[in-house]
């Protein structure tokens, strides 16, 4: 079993690594103190905002139809989309969280970054081209392709919104906490700033603006991280062994940072977390939506090829950055440690390792650049989430369920924009409401729901001919309810949030995925098998045509035909 304290770190880090938000969540950053106002960082961020708002203005002129709004008219290239996907995935927290974990524990940080990467090949091999060939705007287009529209769309939209909500809260809280440390501004100011800017991007520029914000941010983040890693390696003659040797010498845990620590003891948790990360990625609505922005299956494959390459490269950089921080920050404890005392930890908390290293290798201007990148990152991820939430409401619920597919493009676009405003307001409100709450579990929960509810219905509807509406909806509901329920009963919520005594959590593992995802597949299988209705027969008879389209792309929405 994983011990209590390690489990907290575990949950915290999981939160950190993926989404920006949980950054602030746990004990680590939750108690950060406001730092002195950093004008260089604010100026850098202002430049980023000015450029992205300029792009939004340009994008707004191109965003006329619902198709432009959801998918940028399908005119993004594979390379651009790969960068945008990487931008969606490499959050402030995977940068700060993983490098912070490497800084604290060494080797264990590597285990996490691997977990977040391995979902990508699975998406590439099994999903990417099929998504592109069958879908138009949302993943529900794919899941509901040959099924009864109302129940499937209602469920898929619910699944999307629940995932978006948990992910979003974590992001907003993270943004507020991060800005306190990085810019020295108030929490509420940060949350409102994120809400307003994100609404501007999405409302006026739709997917075109959101995509370019992601691309710019991804390039900034990759450039900044590359510079830091090279600066560290340069000091050691590009010999990792020399870097590790120095780190082992100065780190308080010494040689223990070279071997796996206490993070993974219990194999069930290890596998379960691995499943959530691996398959959850293939069920995140804001990631899936990106596959509809490219013109063909060929470009969709290129997208994931590039995305995987950039994300993998980025995780290798964070590993070097973490070790670089170990070596370089301990050389000047007065600058980077509380009271100049190594035992008291880093100023601003453990996740500030990469930020302090930026100062150590590049001075105040580079520190400002990296801080601005970290904040821009949260902004971009939130914009992507909002867009996918808005499309679930306007395309799946409004246009398909309420208007039975007869809504005109202008009305659908209007609903998207209204939803964007609502989501923005709700996000700001929740961000403020959850300021003092422990939200560390939320990102992991979003992944658990994505892999237990969204991924199974998508997978089975596309790849299994006997799957029916009843089976898919029943399995999806099982996955949603069980992943939320088991998370509630696990230590990360039952004990850490609901304040029940230590050890009282009924569900002993770190992630419900091994049970909830397997269960969802089983329910889809059994219910579909037992379903002998006329509707089920019709749905099965439609499979060959669906398969031809998913495999060959014949009849797929083209860029212009959106």
């Amino acid at each position, binding site marked *: 079993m994983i011990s209590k304290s390690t489990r907290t770190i575990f949950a915290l880090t999981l939160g950190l690594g993926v989404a920006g938000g949980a950054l602030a969540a746990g004990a680590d950053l939750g108690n950060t103190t406001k730092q002195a106002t950093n004008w260089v960082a604010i100026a850098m961020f202002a430049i980023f905002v000015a450029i992205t708002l300029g792009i939004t203005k340009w994008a707004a002129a191109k965003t006329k139809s619902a198709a432009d709004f959801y998918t940028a008219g399908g005119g993004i290239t594979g390379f651009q989309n790969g960068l945008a996907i990487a931008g969606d995935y490499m959050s402030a927290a995977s940068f700060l969280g993983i490098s912070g974990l490497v800084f604290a524990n060494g080797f264990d940080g590597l285990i996490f970054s691997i977990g977040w990467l391995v979902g*990508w*090949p699975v998406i590439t*091999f*099994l999903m990417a081209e099929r998504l592109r060939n069958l879908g138009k705007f949302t993943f529900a287009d794919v899941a509901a392709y040959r099924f009864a529209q109302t129940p499937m769309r209602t469920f898929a939209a619910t699944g999307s919104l629940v995932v978006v909500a948990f992910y979003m809260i974590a992001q907003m809280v993270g943004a507020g906490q991060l800005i306190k440390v990085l810019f020295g501004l108030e929490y509420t100011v940060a949350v409102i700033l994120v809400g307003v800017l994100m609404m501007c991007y999405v409302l006026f520029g739709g997917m075109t603006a959101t995509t370019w914000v992601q691309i710019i941010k991804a390039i900034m983040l990759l450039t900044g991280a590359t510079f830091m890693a090279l600066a560290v390696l340069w000091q050691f003659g590009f010999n990792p062994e020399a870097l*590790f040797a120095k780190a082992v010498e100065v780190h308080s845990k010494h040689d223990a940072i070279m071997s796996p620590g206490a993070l*993974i003891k219990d194999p069930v948790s290890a596998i379960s977390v691995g499943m959530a990360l691996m398959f959850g990625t293939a069920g995140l609505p804001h990631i899936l939506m990106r596959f509809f922005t490219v013109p063909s299956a060929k470009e969709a494959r*290129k997208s994931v090829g590039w995305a995987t390459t950039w994300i993998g490269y980025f995780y290798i950089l964070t590993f070097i950055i973490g070790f670089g921080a170990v070596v370089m920050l301990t050389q000047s404890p007065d600058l980077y440690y509380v009271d100049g005392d190594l035992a008291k930890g880093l100023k601003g908390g453990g996740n500030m390792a990469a930020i302090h290293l930026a100062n150590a290798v590049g001075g105040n201007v580079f520190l400002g650049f990296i801080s601005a990148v970290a904040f821009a990152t949260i902004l971009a991820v939130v914009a992507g989430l909002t867009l996918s939430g808005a499309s679930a409401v306007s395309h799946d619920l409004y246009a398909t369920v309420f208007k039975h597919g007869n809504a005109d493009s202008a009305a659908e676009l209007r609903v998207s924009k209204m939803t964007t405003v609502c989501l923005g307001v709700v996000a700001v409100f929740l961000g403020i409401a959850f300021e003092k709450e422990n939200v560390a579990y939320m990102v992991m929960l979003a992944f658990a729901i994505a892999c237990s509810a969204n991924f199974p219905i998508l997978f089975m509807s596309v790849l299994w001919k006997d799957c029916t509406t009843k089976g898919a909806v029943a399995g999806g509901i099982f996955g949603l309810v069980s992943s939320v329920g088991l998370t509630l009963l696990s230590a990360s919520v039952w004990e850490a949030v609901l304040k029940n005594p230590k050890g009282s959590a009924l569900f002993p593992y770190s992630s419900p995925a091994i049970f909830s995802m397997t269960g969802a597949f089983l329910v889809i299988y059994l219910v579909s098998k037992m379903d002998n209705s006329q509707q089920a027969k019709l749905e099965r008879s439609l499979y*060959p045509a669906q398969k031809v389209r998913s495999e060959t*792309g*014949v009849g797929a929405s083209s860029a212009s035909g959106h």
Partner: protein
Amino acid sequence: MNDDIVARIEANPKYHELVSKRNSFGITLSILMIIVYYGYILLIAFNKEWLATKIGAGMVTSIGIPLGVGVIVFTIVVTNIYVRRANTEFDDLNAEIIKEANRK
């Protein structure tokens, strides 16, 4: 979508060749990825000592580090191998199928 075209594609042996070739390639690589990743995780769960072994006498780098970086590199490589083969060989075959289906 035109039912005729679907019927013609389904009747074309090349379509079945495409589906079986591409799917078995995708599934093989998926299984390989799953073995590599869960193998690494289970190694951490059950044999930490071995992973902590140094890669050479007098060195501090442990076996687990190059192995972990290796998993990352492996992930990038297999993904791009699939993309390359699907975008050339399989897409050429796909283009032939569509061309033949549109020819009356």
